[in-house]
């Protein structure tokens, strides 16, 4: 259950990209999603990410992410629509609340809330994709050059995490049979029952830590200057994807400064499509961002393409 979202190597095209290229690509997505205010643009990003998540064989994980996010979306909408009084189209007017003023909900506020919710869903989809295609190993080995100790400690913690969980479940069983019923008693009593479980686990884990330290010591840890073992292939596909993301990003920035992708909700919402360029720029940005998706599809279908990229 706790491992459902852990990275799994499935031999996908998207997983074979160089971590730097992939991270640059995802970063562009992140920036655009936070930059854009126009619902149409956000919708396009969402659509693209949906396709990418499916391409990464992550339907289940993605649905899980979205389901988890829906509650927050509703919360965002409620907060926004209750708080904002800048909208001009009031659709509900409630009683006055002390210290707060009159409650009212405007169509624009609701609209803005929905857009914020959509932005949140885009973010979720983006990170779901990240979890599917970037392995922690690759990410951390990329960072190891900058901060050796922090990365090594995080790597060790990640490797030790499943051990702790497994020990936890086993010790819980052991204690259940020693007469500890974890599901009974008042809250305070239950917390106290956990204290025995907790103590065993903490002691065992820290003893393991001493053993690990010994093994590190025996393998010359901290014995002087060290080097880094890192090996990631850079293929033509990485160049293409990097070019695509950078191109899309530059174009998006240019568009942003010329007003494309911006959007005013208050006092009255803008029209969604101001001119043809609004759609044109969006299409071009999406094209740049969909290069990995297209390559992935082609890579699966044509052996010829496979050998070239």
């Amino acid at each position, binding site marked *: 259950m706790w491992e459902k*979202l*852990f990275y799994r190597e499935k031999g996908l095209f998207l997983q074979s990209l160089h971590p730097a290229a992939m991270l640059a690509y995802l970063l562009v997505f*992140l920036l655009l999603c*936070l*930059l854009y205010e126009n619902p149409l643009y956000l919708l396009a990003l969402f659509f693209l990410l949906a396709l990418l998540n499916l391409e990464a064989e992550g339907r289940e*994980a993605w649905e899980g*992410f979205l389901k988890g996010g829906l509650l927050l979306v509703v*919360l965002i909408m*409620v*907060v926004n629509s209750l*708080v*904002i009084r800048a909208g001009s189209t009031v659709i509900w007017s409630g009683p006055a609340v002390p210290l*707060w003023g009159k409650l009212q909900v405007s169509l624009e506020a609701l609209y*803005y809330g929905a857009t914020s919710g959509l*932005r*949140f869903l885009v*973010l*979720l989809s*983006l*990170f*779901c994709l990240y979890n599917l295609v970037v392995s922690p190993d690759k990410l951390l080995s990329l960072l190891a050059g900058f*901060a*050796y*100790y*922090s990365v*090594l*400690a*995080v790597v*060790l*913690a990640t*490797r030790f*995490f499943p*051990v*702790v*969980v497994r020990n936890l*479940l086993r010790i819980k069983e052991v204690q259940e049979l020693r007469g500890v019923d*974890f599901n009974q008693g008042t*809250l*305070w009593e*239950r*917390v*106290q029952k*956990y*204290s025995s479980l*907790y*103590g065993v686990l*903490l*002691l065992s884990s*820290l003893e*393991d*830590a*001493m053993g*690990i*330290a*010994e093994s*590190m*010591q025996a393998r010359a*840890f*901290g014995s002087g200057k060290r080097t880094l073992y890192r090996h990631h292939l850079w293929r033509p596909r990485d160049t293409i994807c990097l070019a695509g993301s950078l191109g899309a990003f530059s174009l998006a920035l240019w568009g942003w400064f010329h007003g494309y992708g*911006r959007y005013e909700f208050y006092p009255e919402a803008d029209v969604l499509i101001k001119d043809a360029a609004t759609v044109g720029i969006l299409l071009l940005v999406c094209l740049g961002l969909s290069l990995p998706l297209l390559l992935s599809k082609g890579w699966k279908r044509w052996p010829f393409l496979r050998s070239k990229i």
Partner: protein
Amino acid sequence: MAVSWGLWSTLLGFLAVCLLMVGWGRRGSMTSKQLSLLAVLAAFCAAGRAVTGVGLLFLQPTMFLVEITGFVFGARAGFFVGAATPLVSNFFMGQGPWTPWQMLSWGLVGASGGLLKVLFPRAGNGLLTVACFCWGYLYGALMDLWHWSVFVRPLTLKTYFLTWLAGFGFDSLRALGNLLFCAALGQQTKKILEYFHRKMVVEYVEGL
């Protein structure tokens, strides 16, 4: 809205946490015992965060441990264990845009433990429990800062207050959990960590 606050707050979180982690990993050198002890503590906290007891109203026996780690091992170690906790558990539960801010907030919890030690070297479990209880709310307030900047417009004190209010239930639960766990387990945990803190220092070697 010319300035995209959501963008800046998220990027700021990323940057801050990267810089702090890089800074943490660069300074000085660490012995194998220090490194593995902190890593295992982080794994332990991450597991406590990921596998929470359903029978316990989803209370997490984690934040108080980060606080005590800071108290026993110092602010630097506390910060690392705190920051690594959400990072590691999110590798398994899913990373999200919230990870950097979570790392910062958790890191602060750990660092504050170190601060407490400096201010009150002889502090008992009572003070730590109070600190943990406060952190339950403070952590929520910090995370709300991010939620608010990304999803709420306009950015006024009033809207922030409302965002905070929306999360009040969760915050209270967290604070309650911290209070109960720290009260029940604090003493024992501190004893265990202090024992290993002593062990971490290489013993003096003498000849016969």
